[in-house]
């Protein structure tokens, strides 16, 4: 029995991976890793969903049936990490563009 949200996560991971594997443009490789990271964030959040649950916040909560809080905290951490990694890789891409005038990974030693 497969759940649709998990299947969707796996499809998005594959999309990201295909960008990393097939694309030659460095910015698209960065986008691919970012997509994979987002898909995994989605996976963490959907792991912690409980049917009928509300966000684990007591301010004006309609019910005490709540989804799991830890995955949301982990997702917060992993979003920020993904942001930092993306910023770092983009600045490398900027430098590479400055040196070679191109973002194509085939022009140099760099292969995937």
């Amino acid at each position, binding site marked *: 029995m497969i759940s649709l949200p998990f299947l969707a996560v796996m499809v998005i991971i594959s999309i990201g991976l295909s960008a990393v594997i097939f694309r030659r443009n460095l910015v698209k490789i960065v986008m691919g890793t970012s997509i994979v990271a987002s898909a995994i964030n989605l996976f963490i959040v959907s792991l912690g969903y409980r049917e009928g649950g509300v966000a*684990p916040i007591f301010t004006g909560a309609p019910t005490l049936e709540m989804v*799991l*809080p830890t995955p949301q905290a982990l997702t917060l951490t992993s979003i*920020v990490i993904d942001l930092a990694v993306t910023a770092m890789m983009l*600045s*490398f891409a900027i430098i590479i563009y400055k040196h070679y005038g191109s973002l194509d990974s085939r022009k140099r030693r760099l292969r995937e």
Partner: protein
Amino acid sequence: MIRVKILTLVLLFAFLVACAVQTHPFGKPDQTFMDDYFIQNGQAETGSNNIVSSVVFDYRGFDTLGEASILFAAAMGVFLVLRRVEK
């Protein structure tokens, strides 16, 4: 070459779908004791209505320190890489 890549991708996808099949059904986690502890006692122990906040800054505060320092490291890295260099 392109065939090898497509084959790799298909294999990876099959592998990931196999993992998704094995995961618990959506909306029905197998075990929830740790998170139930947070929901039951988080408000009393930390005084925060937002349980996610209490997990982020209290129960798993060290992760958050690491996370903030990752942002710091990334900022330092961006400045280092994009600094003005006299040739």
